[in-house]
């Protein structure tokens, strides 16, 4: 029998295996690789009013745990930044951003080169539940918050890609399709939200910067649609139609 392990992809492996030449990072292709030129054209022709770009291959890891459990603290220590407990906020530390996605769910986002993020977290907090499950089985109560050591860490780096939407007109651009209030009073530094943009589900993150700008995390399969939508919505800001929609 083979030794089964939880498979992880190259980007986050603690000790990367030597990959074969043809699968080198040069062969990687991001969901919006084909859109880069059109994004750059908008950035140019809007004369800085808008900046659109894909931030490909960011490391992304979903963390599920009880925020009152010791695992939450362990996760914070491993990440170097505590998990945000206020809904729809972001904690940043080093090169990592930790997004609140739900009362027991976070998304850790790191630079494209980040390696071993999921394993680091899993080592720090994960797998504990396997050993302590029996101890806790007896104290589970369905209506009271129980300190539950059950955690889940899932690498989702390729599940979504990230779009940078920045520039003085970025808020106006997103307002064409985003129903939530993006005014700095309502959605300033440190805020994030899961919501809809056009007809796609997205995670919006206010950039950690005094200038207006957002990260838009979108499911990879929707990325092409959302890119087309953004390019179309940018039409007035660049002075000419970027996409012909029949």
């Amino acid at each position, binding site marked *: 029998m083979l030794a*089964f392990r*939880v*498979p992880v*992809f*190259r980007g986050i492996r603690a000790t990367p*295996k030597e*990959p074969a*030449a*043809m*699968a080198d990072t040069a062969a*990687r*292709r991001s*969901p919006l690789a084909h859109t880069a030129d059109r994004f750059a054209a908008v950035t140019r022709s809007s004369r800085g009013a808008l900046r659109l770009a894909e931030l490909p291959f960011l490391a992304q890891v979903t963390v599920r745990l009880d925020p009152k459990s010791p695992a939450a603290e362990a996760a914070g220590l491993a990440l170097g930044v505590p998990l945000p407990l206020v*809904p729809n906020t972001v904690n940043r530390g080093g090169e990592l951003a930790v997004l609140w996605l*739900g009362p*027991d769910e976070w998304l850790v986002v790191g630079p494209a080169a980040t390696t071993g993020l999921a394993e680091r977290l899993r080592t720090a907090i994960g797998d504990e*539940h*396997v050993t302590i499950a029996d101890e806790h089985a007896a104290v589970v*109560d*369905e209506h009271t918050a129980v300190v539950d050591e*059950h955690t*889940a860490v*899932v690498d*989702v*780096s*390729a*599940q*979504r890609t990230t779009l940078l939407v920045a520039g*003085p*007109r970025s808020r*106006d651009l*997103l*307002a*064409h399709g985003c*129903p939530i*209030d*993006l*005014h*700095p*009073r309502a959605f300033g530094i440190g805020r994030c*939200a*899961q919501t*809809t943009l056009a007809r796609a*589900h997205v995670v919006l993150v206010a950039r950690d910067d*005094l200038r*207006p700008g957002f990260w838009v995390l979108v*499911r990879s*399969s*929707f990325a*092409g*649609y*959302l890119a*087309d*939508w953004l390019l*179309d919505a940018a039409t*007035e800001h660049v002075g*000419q*139609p970027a996409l012909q*929609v*029949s």
Partner: protein
Amino acid sequence: MLLIPCPWCGPRDEAEFHYGGQAHVPYPQDPASLSDKEWARYLFFRDNPKGPFAERWSHAAGCRRWFNAVRDTSTNEILTVYRPGEDRPSSEDLSLTATSQQRPATSQPLPATSQPRPGSPARPAFEDEARPGPTGVQGAEPPGGAEGAAPLEDGTGRGGGGDHPFRHPTRGRIDRTAPLKFTFDGTEYQGYRGDTLASALLANGVIQTGTSIKLGRPRGIFSAGVEEPNAVIQIEEPFPEPMLPATTVELYDGLVASSLPGQGRLATEPDPARYDAVHAHCDLLVVGAGPAGLAAAAAAARSGARVILADDQPEPGGSLLGTGELLDWVAETGRELAAAPEVRVLHRTTVFGHYDDNHLLAVERRTNHLGAQAPAHVSRERVWRIRARHVVLATGAHERSLAFADNDRPGVMLAASARSYVNRHGVLPGRHAVVFTTNDSAYAAALDLAAAGVEVAAIVDTRPEPGPWADRARDAGIEVLTGHAVTGTEGGERLTAVSVAPYGEATARREFAVDLLLVSGGWNPVAHLFSQAGGKLRYDDTLGSFVPDTCRQAVEVAGGANGVLDLAGALAEGAAAGARAIEAVGYTCEVPRLPDVAAVPQAPPMQVFLVPGAAGAPRFVDLQRDVTVDDLARATGAGLRSVEHTKRYTTAGTANDQGKTSGLLSSGIVAELLGVDISALGTTTFRPPYTPVSFAALAGRHRGALLDPIRVTALHEWHVEHGALFENVGQWKRPWYYPRDGEDMEAAVLRECRAAREGVAFMDASTLGKIDVQGPDAGVFLDRLYTNMMSTLKVGMIRYGVMCRADGMVFDDGTVIRLAPDRFLVTTTTGNAATVLDWMEEWLQTEWPELRVHCTSVTEQWATVALVGPRSREVLAGLAPTLAVDNDSFPFMAWRDTTVAGIDARICRISFSGELAYEINVSPWEALALWEALYEAGRPYGITPYGTETMHVLRAEKGYPIVGQDTDGTVTPQDLGMSWVVSKKKPDFVGKRSFARADTVRPDRKHLVGLLPEDPGTFLPEGTHLVADSELPAPPVPMLGHVTSSYRSAALGRTFALALIKGGRDRIGERLYAPVGDRLVPVTVASPVLYDPEGARRDG
């Protein structure tokens, strides 16, 4: 759009939520112990109360948490929300938190609204220095040059009237330096910038703009605004547009329009213009920039609150533009508002809908007024979706007409509208006029017209004692006939004479030769939005009209819209409403500078609807629908007692003006006919939109490629480059088949099938849903959701599973991979991925919170390639040198981690075709590299890419059903012949109890079977019915079932089908008949497994 407060994320649009039905209906402890009746009650019966109702919601597009809400089903208000597991709040608690107490339309200071607000107006907005845009609301400014909103003339214009016979030499706010050419009914005319099409026509002496829809009577310009019933025209150029009131069309150069016999024509070409939408949020939305609205916005402007002021005209002022009063104050206030940092003024913007939780829709006409000069990249119209914490409605009032004999001739015009033409456009709507009124307001119109040179022959006032205004008119040399009324009119294309008698008499005493008759039957507050918002109206006896009363939303009404028709009162009420609104949301108000307005003594109006007149002459109520008093009398004579019914019986109020001038008149006349008080009768319901909105504007950018999201896989570009045709599966584009030169679909699919059965073929299977399920209770959890046992699956192995709803009907199927003792990877059908995840979360969060399980979607974390066919093992072995591929080392339904072409991969040995097959999962970032490596390595074996059609043929030959194609929500696993997938050992799982219901064990349930047409070339269309007899009996013909899948098979050398047939498994071998066109095609019922029933090909 409701604003639903998620217990975690706070208030969000209803569209982010998913409704989950009645709350507190727990899954029974022991379903097996319930009778069929009890179980059916759990499955199918829910409460349906009027009033507070506890229900489940999920914040589906947000934090994905389920919660409970108590909603008042009669008002849709969410009274409270609470988390799963918490008790439902008692009704006493609810009555404390309910917001449903009615607010007066104008009131004492309001309590703060329910949403807490940090209220830090001093916090700097962090816009870039480059182009500081307004931060008050989102949305792009139209680029420079697009607005065309340079200030118009101020009423002291110089220069003559040019060639316009009815143009005053100096009056009006038109720009006489900007002449514009336009064409109406084939004749070219000239007008000025600042004109409407109606004012330009009047200036040229044209008043008739069409004929009426039913009776063909000449009709002319009747008003100066959106209430216009008559002058509805067709624009021909630059782009055809039907049914626009000429009174609302801003004149532009090159406009070509024509009159209409009631009904317009749609363009035959697609509209080339851009339409878009924008979301906006504000503390205060003021609707209307007349005196009350401007005062309200001015009160809020400097507080730091976010304010939107929306007005349908190109410039602020509202009624003041027509009366010519306070224009300096208007200009100054307009400048102040434009300069205020958090204020956005939307001109040419009609707020047309007022929905739940102060969600209002408005349409901004951005480039219509530029005609052919409109820049193509700027949207022509924009829909604003505004969420306001407070709303001040300052929508003014519409003048109403009177039902007198022959009251529809061109030249009969509302008095204030005529005044507006004189003051705003410098146009004389006629030379000689009679004024017919029941109230003071028409006197000012008469005086302004007289001052502009119109000969006002008489003011005919129904009131015996009109008061001080009559003295003013007499002082100006105008005869005032008190206690009189108009009894009839003469004229054809234009009015020529008006006859008058003491009010109450039908026979004319005097006749005036005039070409203009001004009418004022009183004023109707524009309460449309207030009413749409849920506001109640009450009848005001003094005013003789319905005025806003109470509303549960944070809305106030000010000025004319609230029945306050005097200028000083409107200003004061507007300022107070604006101040209250922003104080309620935590800002401090500065008292705005309001202009001094001399109080003018007023006499009360007289309530008149019906005026006696010449026998046989029609008295029109609804001009646009040609509805007369006699029509209404027929309706009441037929026994109708409600204005809602008389409206539908007569069509009064149903035209595209929606009865703005006729609605209250209809109510008044029906009340008189019935002998009841109008206050008891009420009005018909006001529904959005306030004015017609084009479908193009409502569609916005949701057209063409942006109509709906298109989901693609990481390999999509390869498929496109290799000539794939695509099939829509949910929102996904999946390769359907890859035709080669000259191939049709049939040939391509037969070729692809042959490759998969005889050599090797590969397919992009990335769209399958994938869910990571982990936790100590993951096995228990999956045992409860799948019909078969998952907890016994060994790590490293794979099992096929079926999920049913609680009613026992198949809902999804797929494979389950055990990755680790506490970790599974579940696959779902392509179209059901999100639904299955929601289903899992609903059970976990609401019914089984004790289970220690977490579910995470990883659909796009993996790209999946199916490598299929007897030669697939050789292709794989060449690319995965470290993988032992022989059948013993890597058996069917096992998975392995390895590298393929140097790419980390997880390979599953599963087959949806019956052939030896592998599903190779890699990161989508490397999917193209894998695909190309497989293509290259498979070349010696003739590897062939195949699409969904071939996949369907291959699976159907093996009798594998597709959920959603061969099932339709009424099919159990047993119906599919899959009893083997239903566990007998598990004490319970979702759906189990239903398999013991009398209905699911009927012998005549429809079973999935194969069908073989007796002629192997005959193809049965999917959906074809099946009958027992070779000749159709007399209807109703008993139907035995229908074809669910139908294909041509390369392997079988014939056509075949799958079908759901009553008692089908007991009919195998029987001949049935399928009506195709006018033929009855004989078919033989067969086992659904038509190819390789022994399963010999699975291991290669």
